[in-house]
């Protein structure tokens, strides 16, 4: 059975088996989303937004759609996937099911808990009505699919004037208990006025079976809130990820989404920012370091709707072997968004002879008093720099790694959590297959 048909029938099963409350307001949202998915189907290369990314090989599996039992995993076996050097809140899922054993949630002063509670408990009705699926509507059938199957995920709701004492880690494990599995986590993050939150997210397969994750996250940053979101994408070879993150910012807030894409078979990041107020600052950063036949597609949208806001976008890519990359950065500046500063930069190094990158800046500017710039470079390693380093005794492999590290460093430097910065540096060193023997 084709995956699409399987999903349609699974949706009916889900409704009929009482897995969801048919009377809840989100029932309507689900049904509409499913209808939209049914109509559109999975995107193909004929869609302009999917021109350089084919989902064919990823969709061609008999995925199990509903997770079954909670699988037991020991903390010691998965400790390395956490940023365990520091204290943190943890919302952990194993094969799509909440793991209370691995998690550290709270309701004390703010909510760091589960989407499933929000869906079930009446006291969250207002939250659902005000926030759920309000910004996750990008005419993308995969987002609709996630909405239709919303069951579980992280729910984070921070009120006014709270500076979180420690970051929040959202980790999704896949054990391989089911042969091939489709996971669809759905996160909702609401950060109140003047509050600060740091989030680290990771999807990690523990098996070589195939897993496809279609994740959707909505982030609402209130007035003067500061939200930093880090996504570690360093999964195994048979794991693919379609990750859509939507961020709405209110006046004077600062938000960032940072993706570190080193692993996985296929990764598609949709990152979309919407401004609703003045003096907003937005940052989108990413590094992709790929080899073999890996593919990463970074699709971003920065939508300036109000005056006096700034956005900064920096994506770096290093492509070895026959890996492929896509960068599509859209910036829209509405007519009323005067005095906008919007900067976008995408720099790439191709190492492999068969590696390719398709880089596409898209600027749609309707205001006349703005500063907008974009730049894109595609190059190779600088031979004269390599010789210089070699002449000082640094072997070719290490010299290349050092140059590549230096190339990506601008993005690493933006990480605000020192332990995470060290961790990312180590992941980069591993990926480049060297020991970067110096302090960062």
């Amino acid at each position, binding site marked *: 059975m084709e995956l699409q048909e399987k999903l349609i029938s699974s949706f009916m099963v889900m409704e009929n088996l009482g897995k969801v409350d048919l009377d809840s307001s989100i029932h309507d949202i689900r049904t509409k989303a499913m209808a939209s998915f049914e109509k559109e189907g999975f995107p193909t290369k004929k869609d302009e937004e999917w021109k350089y990314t084919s989902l064919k090989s990823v969709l061609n599996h008999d995925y199990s759609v509903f997770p079954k039992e909670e699988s037991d995993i020991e903390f010691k076996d998965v400790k390395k996937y956490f940023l365990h050097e520091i204290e943190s809140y943890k919302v952990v899922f194993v094969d799509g099911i909440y793991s209370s054993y691995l998690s550290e949630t709270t309701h004390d002063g703010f909510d760091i808990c589960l989407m499933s509670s929000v869906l079930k408990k009446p006291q969250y009705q207002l939250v659902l009505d005000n926030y759920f699926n309000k910004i996750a509507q990008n005419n993308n059938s995969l987002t609709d699919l996630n909405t239709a199957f919303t069951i579980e995920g992280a729910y984070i709701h921070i009120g006014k004037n709270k500076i979180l004492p420690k970051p929040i880690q959202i980790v999704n494990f896949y054990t391989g208990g089911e042969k091939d599995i489709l996971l669809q986590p759905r996160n909702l993050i609401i950060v109140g006025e003047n509050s600060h939150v740091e989030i680290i997210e990771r999807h990690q397969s523990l098996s070589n079976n195939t897993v496809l994750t279609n994740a959707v996250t909505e982030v609402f940053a209130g007035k003067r809130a500061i939200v930093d979101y880090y996504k570690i994408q360093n999964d195994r070879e048979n794991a693919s990820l379609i990750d859509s993150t939507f961020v709405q910012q209110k006046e004077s807030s600062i938000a960032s989404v940072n993706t570190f894409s080193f692993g996985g078979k296929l990764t598609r990041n949709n990152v979309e920012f919407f401004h609703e107020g003045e003096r907003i600052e937005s940052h989108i950063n990413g590094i992709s370091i790929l080899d073999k036949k890996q593919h990463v597609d970074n699709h971003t949208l920065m939508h300036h709707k109000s005056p006096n806001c700034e956005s900064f976008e920096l994506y770096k890519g290093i492509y070895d072997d026959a890996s492929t990359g896509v960068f599509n950065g859209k910036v829209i500046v509405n007519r009323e968004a005067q005095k906008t500063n919007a900067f976008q930069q995408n720099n790439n190094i191709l190492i492999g002879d068969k590696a390719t990158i398709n880089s596409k800046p898209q600027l749609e500017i309707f205001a006349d008093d703005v500063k907008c710039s974009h730049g894109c470079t595609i190059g190779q390693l600088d031979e004269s720099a390599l010789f210089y380093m070699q*002449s*000082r*005794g640094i072997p070719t492999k*290490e010299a290349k790694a050092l*140059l590549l*590290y230096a190339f990506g460093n601008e993005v690493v430097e933006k990480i605000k959590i020192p332990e995470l910065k060290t961790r990312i540096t180590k992941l980069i060193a591993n990926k480049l297959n060297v020991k970067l*023997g*110096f302090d960062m």
Partner: protein
Amino acid sequence: MLEIKNLHAEIENKGILKGINLNVKAGEVHAIMGPNGSGKSTLASVIAGNETFVVTKGDVILENKSILELSPDERAHKGVFMSFQYPIEIPGVSTTNFIKTAINEKRKANGMEDLPAKDMLKLIREKSALLEMNRKFLSRSLNEGFSGGEKKRNEIFQMAMLEPKLAILDETDSGLDIDALKVVANGVNKLKSAENAVILITHYQRLLDYIVPDFVHVLHNGKIVKSGGKELAYELEEKGYDWVKDI
């Protein structure tokens, strides 16, 4: 220490070096002078192992072993150092991290453990003081935004850290004002010993007032056309290079 025998080298089928013979013993300072395009910098690059140039004939022997088959880093591990005429800027790598990596790679190649962090720091302090370097430069990206003089100073700082057996200084005096020149020359003089050797490549006699050579060679059209003592440099300064071209 270094023997260059009938060395021929070319770039894109164009001959640059056309039979160089040179013998450098430990403890000696040799100056190689010559007009633009005579092959001075090519000679330095070929000794250091730059693969842009193809050696077609002859040999380069360091301590009785040919080094032509060795990669630039292997040559560096054996004690060859070249100070670049135009040092490369490497954004994102600090001078400190760069030199640490270089030193530990050299130690690794010679079967030694990494230098303990404490000793490394001490060494960096000592050598940067020798070159009267502003310590701020050490934590900045290598050569990025440095002035010409700062770059050259940084080259000699790296030389001081790596303690090479054979140092080739390619136009180290160019871009230096007189004060910086004195500091750099003073650094080189302090590093000189009976165990190591220096080859100075320079266009002008000026540098040789501060680093006094034992021998001066004049390179013209890919060959050494005249050799002599330090007086030769003065003669060149006075008469210009046309004089040797006619020889």
